[in-house]
Structures are given as C-alpha cells and as structure tokens.
C-alpha cells in the first residue's frame, strides 16, 4: 500500500474510495485546520462510516425508547444492561456480520460470533447464551446450500469451542437474500451489577493496554466495506478474510473476567476491538472520558512485517481487547494475562488534553482531536419516498384448503416452517448446564443458577410482513418476540436489534427504515421493552436489488419462578384446547400465500398493539396461576401449524372442531396463542380468558373439523415429514 501525500489524496480523491464524500473531506480539513495525511484520512473514513458513526440511522434510532426503571445501561456501550433483581443483571446485544458471511461464510459467521461475545464480556458479564438470525436465498440453489452449511458450521464451531451454548434463533429463505444473506448473532450475559464496566479511558498518565491476538492485515476496511453495496465485481477483491480463533478468545475472555472480578481497582476501562479495530476502540474510549491519548504503534503486537499505521489502526484482526489501566500497575496486568497464556502489551498512555496522537518509528503519524474523530461525524436525514408496492389493493388471496391434510403436510415441509433441528443440533445448546428449555420451543430458557429465576430469549422478524408494510411489520417483529417470551412464562424486559436494510441513499429504502423503526418504537413502548443495544447494517443490496427490510429483534424476558416455565408441547391426553385471540381471514404475506402463489403481495392484514398486549396479559396470568399445561404462539403457518407442532414432542394427538372455513387454519392473524388446559382448570381458564374450548388432546392422530373441510393426520407421519424436511432440502 502506497501512502499518498496530503495533496495527492485531495487531488486524486482517494477519500472517496474509502467512503468519505467531498463535503465530509472538507469538514475534516476544517476540523483539523489543514489537510489530513494518509493515516488521518483513513482514521476519519473509518470512524465516520455508517458502521461506526450511524450517520444515516442516528436520527431514526432516536425514536427508540431506551430507558426504564430496570435499565442500568442503554445503547452506547458494548452492550445494554437490565437489572433482574438479587444484585444481578442481564446484558445483551446483537450484531450483524452479513458481508463477511456472504464472502466467506464459515469464518464470517465464526468471527461474527466472536465479536458479539467480546461485547458482552467487555461489560464484565459472563456470556451465558448465543442466538442467531439467519436469512438466506431459496433452497433450490447450490451456492445457497453451501452458504447455509458453512454459516451454521462457523456459528457452531465458535460457540461450541468457547463453551457458550447456542440456544435459539430463526431462519428464513427468500430469493432477495440470495446475493446478500444475513447473519445476525446475539449474545446474552449475566452480570453482578457491581462489576459493570464502561469503555472509557480517563485520567492523564494512565496506561493503554493491548491484549489478545496479534494484528495482521485482516479485515482492513471492514467497517467501510460494511457500509457499501455489494456486486459481482467486488466479490474477488476482498481484503484479507478474518479467521476466528475461539481458543484465543476463550483465554482472553477468562483473563478479562478475572481482571474485572478480582482487580477492579486497577481497571479504568475496557473495550473490545470490533469494527475499525484499534482506532475505533481507542478513540471511543478516549472521547467518552474526554481525554486524548498517545499510542506507540511500534509496540502493537504484529503478525506481519512492514505494516503501515493505516493498516495497524484499521485492521480487524479478531480476539483483541483494549484496556485502560491505572498507572503503576503494568506488571500486575501482564502477569494476569500470562496466567491465561495471553499477551498484554502497554502501547500508550492517556493524555490530559483531547489530542489523539499516533507515533511510529519515532515520528508522529497522526495528530487529531479525538472528539472530531468520534463525535463530529455528520448526520444525515435522507430523502424518503413511499414505495408504490405498499399501496396494492388488499384484494384477497384465498388459500385453497380443499385437500386440508395435504395442504397442512405441505406447509409443514416448507423450509421456513420445518423443524430447524438439523441446524441447531450442530450447536452445543447445553454447555454450562443451565439450558432448561432447549431449542425447539417458542423461546429458549436459561436458569439463573442459585436462584429460582430463569431468562427466556428469542430472536424474531418476519421480513415478508415488513415488505408489505414496514410500519406494522416493525410493530409485529417486537410483538412476536414478546409473544414468544410470554408463551414461555416470561415477562419481556427489553430488546436488542439489528437493522438490516438496503441502501439509505435509496429514498424507498430510507422510507422503509423510517417506518420500521417507528413501528418498533411504538411496540417497545407498548410492551415496556426499551431498546438497550443494537446494530445497523445498511447497504444490503446485491446488483442493485435490496433485501426485504429485516429488523431482527432479540428479546430477553425474566421468568420470575421456575414454576412458570412453559413449553409448547402437549403434556397430557384429555387436556382442553383453546385459542386465545381472534382469528380472521388474514392471508397476505403468509406462508400459505407464498406456497400457493409463489408471491408475497397485497395489503398486509391489520394489527393492533393494544389487543396484542391484552392477549399476552391473559396468557401471562394463566401461566402464573398454574392453569395451563402448554402454550404456543401462533405465527407462520397459522393455527394448523401451531397445533401440529404442539403434538410432536410427546406424540400426543388432538381433536379440534373449529367454527371457521378450513382455509382460516392457515391465516396468520397476530396476537394468538394455542393453549392446553387440564380439565380441572376449565372453569377458571374460561373465566379468565373468556375463551371457548375448541377441542382436546389425546390419541395419536391430529383431527380437525371445520365448516367446510375436515382432516385427519397421523402425528408420527406428520412429525417425521416436518422434522426431516429441511435436511432433505439441503441435500
């Protein structure tokens, strides 16, 4: 790499290749009072990229509620924190690794997992669970199958090796993701509140420590690269791929947690080196505390020879952390990390002014105001335009359910509906021996050891709904997550999110972003689930075609007593069956629409937040008063699928008699649950919910009678088809 002179950078507009506009470059000049040199231009390009500065999304993120009575830390740190009582708190965050996964799925997914784990332990929390959210192209494409296989392997291998259970996730398959698949990971940690850490470097003379793996030329410009669109040509010219080293991360994690737990007195701040590596971690730590720093790049552990400052600062080599340590305690830190076979190197000191100064080979190679780098990035509100497709007639698609049993069998084998067991059995979901509800039910449940409490967690988003109506779709994403938490016996606490969208320069995409975040904000207010952390991934386009708007919602809920833990599977024969919530003819955007017409079109059905909240309350109360044996939320595929799924685990059948057309069994009206209730609680349950029984559990068949068509299915046969469909289609 040739380091151009400042004049050459200006003349050749090098900054444009790095994603800075001319106006932004002018602003840098103005802030510095001179032309930036090569290194400095690189620092600004990275720090002012969408990925680091959220310059296009910040105004929209402001809509999110971020505070609440139990919220100890909202967005802005490595991860958000929520008090769960007894002096403990839950910490969680989600992160996207879409572009790296598209290029190199195994390592892209693995390093995505590694990165999000670092965010959690940098807060002083011990990671207790991982979840994912995966969106790929249709399964008829060989490359897509390869991407899925490798992505799943990468997620699994990293989590399995480091010893964090991967307990849940979601997966959809749509053509729009073929060239730009999405890989989002979410990590949840547990914290003793006293240990809460901040990523700040304060106090002149304090030491900056680099710990973990050496720096190489991998992932240079990763942040910039994540802030640009994809096309065929770029495919070949990727900067070096990052390789994950979960063993190194395990050692770094144990060392950092030891430092935080047992040496808090000497630790001033800690932050992981994620996007834009050394520059973003160090500059953010300084800016947050209002201090500058001197860094000596000669001391940065290096894996390759001859790295220039630009490369050292922007490398995204994995498994590295930055610490600020009280002066005088260098030896203690070095010793501690050596105990964990990990390198800790002092690379700089905190300054009392706000200058951020880099030295190499005895020369100053960059000297900028740290606030300029971190806080002065421009913020844009882009033009937005309502896409024409949103004004389609509601004109109804009516499913054909005349061959009811066949239709249900086909729906059960759609990849989005079919069991994900062939995926999640590649994840160690049990390590740490706290997983009391394994993948396969609505939300995964992790007990809090030593208490009678547990945490429920889920990831959700239905991009089809957002495609038809980004505003309501945004509301539904949050509502569905909450529904899954409630169905598992929990009280929703808060959410993290990954906003995966196309290019914000496209007014129609910007409109989607605006509307989706608006909808999410409204839903978060309704359920009192503030947004405590998140991540934005824009420019998800391939050859000019944007993905569906895909805001992944990761929600955690508190289960206040282990007695409330509830799963979706039927437990006994002879229990009564109920649907909580009203069913309507809601078919646009549904699985059955896609299956029978090959399209997603029309006006999305109505959705009402208040109804949703009311129904969730009823179910919550029913669980807490011990009235139910199982609860399953009704989502993709509708009532028929929800009931079928409930029969599978224990192979207990059901007989239903519903007063509606058979096609409505596949309606995806929101705000509904299937509940099984022991006969002894019939009166109490009906009094509480006002619901009428629609059948009962028992036998080895699933029998449904409707106003027009009836069906009968052998549970074992249906289960086998549902269970094996995905693995089959992956072959």
């Amino acid at each position, binding site marked *: 790499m040739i380091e151009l002179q400042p004049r050459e950078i200006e003349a050749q507009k090098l900054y444009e290749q790095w994603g800075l506009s001319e106006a932004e470059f002018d602003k840098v000049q103005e802030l510095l009072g001179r032309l930036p040199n090569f290194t400095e231009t690189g620092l600004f390009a990275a720090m002012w990229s969408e990925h680091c500065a959220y310059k296009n999304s910040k105004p929209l993120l402001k809509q999110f509620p971020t505070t609440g009575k139990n919220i100890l830390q909202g967005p802005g740190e490595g991860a958000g924190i929520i008090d769960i009582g007894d002096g403990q708190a839950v910490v969680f965050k989600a992160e996207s690794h879409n572009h790296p996964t598209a290029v*190199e799925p195994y390592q892209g997914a693995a390093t995505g997992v590694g990165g999000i784990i670092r965010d959690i332990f940098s807060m002083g929390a011990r990671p207790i669970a991982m979840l994912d959210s995966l969106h790929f192209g249709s399964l008829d494409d060989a490359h897509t199958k390869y991407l899925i296989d490798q992505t799943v392997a990468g997620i699994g291998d990293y989590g399995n090796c480091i010893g964090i259970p991967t307990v849940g996730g979601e997966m959809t398959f749509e053509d729009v993701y073929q060239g730009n698949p999405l890989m989002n990971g979410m990590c949840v940690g547990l914290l003793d509140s006293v240990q809460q850490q901040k990523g700040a470097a304060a106090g002149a003379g304090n030491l900056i420590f680099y710990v973990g*793996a050496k720096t190489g030329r*991998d992932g240079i410009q990763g942040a910039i690269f994540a802030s640009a669109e994809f096309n065929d040509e770029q495919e070949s010219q*990727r900067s070096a*791929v990052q*390789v*994950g080293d979960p*063993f190194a991360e395990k050692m770094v994690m144990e060392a950092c947690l030891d430092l935080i737990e047992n040496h808090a007195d000497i630790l001033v701040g800690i932050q992981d080196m994620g996007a834009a590596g050394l520059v973003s971690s160090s500059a953010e730590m300084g800016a947050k505390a209002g201090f500058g720093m001197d860094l000596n790049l000669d001391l940065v552990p290096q894996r*390759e020879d001859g790295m220039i400052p630009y490369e050292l600062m922007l490398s995204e080599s994995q498994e590295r952390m930055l610490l600020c340590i009280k002066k005088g305690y260098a030896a203690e830190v070095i010793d501690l990390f050596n105990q964990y076979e990990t390198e800790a190197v002092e690379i700089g000191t905190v300054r009392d002014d706000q200058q951020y100064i880099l030295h190499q080979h005895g020369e100053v190679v960059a000297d900028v105001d740290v606030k300029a780098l971190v806080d002065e990035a421009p913020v844009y509100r882009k033009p937005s335009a309502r896409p024409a497709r949103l004004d389609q007639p509601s004109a109804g698609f009516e499913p054909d359910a005349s061959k009811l049993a066949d239709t249900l069998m086909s729906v059960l084998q759609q990849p989005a509906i079919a069991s994900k067991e062939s995926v999640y059995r590649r994840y160690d979901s049990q390590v740490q021996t706290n997983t009391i509800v394994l993948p396969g039910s609505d939300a995964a449940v992790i007990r809090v050891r030593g208490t009678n409490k547990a945490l429920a967690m889920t990831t959700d988003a239905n991009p089809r709904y957002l495609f038809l109506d980004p505003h309501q779709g945004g509301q539904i994403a949050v509502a569905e997550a909450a529904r899954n938490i409630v169905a598992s016996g929990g009280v929703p606490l808060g959410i993290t999110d990954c906003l995966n969208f196309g290019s914000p320069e496209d007014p129609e995409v910007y409109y989607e972003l605006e509307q989706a975040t608006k909808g999410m904000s409204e839903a978060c207010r309704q359920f009192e689930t503030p947004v405590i952390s998140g991540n934005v991934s824009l420019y998800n386009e391939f050859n000019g075609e944007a993905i569906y708007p895909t805001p992944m919602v990761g929600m955690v809920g508190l289960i206040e007593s282990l007695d409330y833990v509830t799963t979706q599977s039927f437990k006994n024969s002879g229990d009564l069956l109920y649907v909580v919530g009203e069913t309507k003819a809601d078919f646009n955007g549904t699985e059955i629409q896609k299956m029978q017409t090959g399209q997603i079109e029309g006006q999305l059905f109505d959705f009402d937040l208040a109804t949703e909240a009311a129904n969730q309350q009823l179910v919550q109360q029913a669980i807490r008063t011990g009235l139910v044996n199982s609860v399953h939320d009704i989502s993709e595929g509708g009532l028929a699928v929800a009931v079928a799924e409930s029969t599978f685990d224990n192979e207990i059948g059901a007989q239903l008699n519903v007063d509606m057309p058979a096609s409505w069994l596949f309606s995806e009206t929101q705000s509904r649950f299937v509940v099984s209730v022991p006969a002894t609680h019939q009166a109490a349950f009906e009094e509480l919910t006002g619901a009428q029984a629609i059948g009962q559990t028992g036998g080895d068949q699933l029998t449904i009678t409707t106003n027009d068509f009836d069906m009968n299915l052998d549970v074992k046969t249906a289960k086998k088809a549902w269970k094996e469909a995905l693995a089959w289609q992956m072959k």
Partner: protein
Amino acid sequence: MYSVKVYVTYKASILDPQGEAVKTALHRLDFTNVESVTQGKYFELMIKKTGKNIDEQVEEMCTELLTNTNMESYTYEIEELTTVEG
C-alpha cells in the same frame, strides 16, 4: 491412472491458529528450534485417465472445491502411474 497430491495452506497474511497451536506445543516439548509451523490440508487423489487434460482438471478441482481461494492457496503434483490399468 494418475496419482495426484494437493497441498492447501492459508495464504501468508491469514491467521493460522492451528499452526500457532502446534508451534507452541512443539516449543513446550523442547523443540525450541522450530521457527514456524503452518498447518494445512493434504489430499491424495487417484484419477482415471480420460480424454480431458489432467492439469486442467486438477486445477479446476482445486479452485472449485479443494481450496477456498478467498484465503487459501494450493500446490499440487501429478504423477502418471505406469501400471497397466484394470
């Protein structure tokens, strides 16, 4: 019949945690004179002679399947076996 050997390693700039782990272990076993270790993959293939050019075939197998050209590089050796083919 050809006997083909393919060697695949990470490109020079890519982190090789496996090689590092082996190096550390060798040092611990007192082989301190080991300066560097790269761990890669090794394939032995037996390939029937056909009308097609064997070099081109192997080249294609390497780029299509045996290596991940994003991060790995490969070399190979082709030896024609003189035994009579069954």
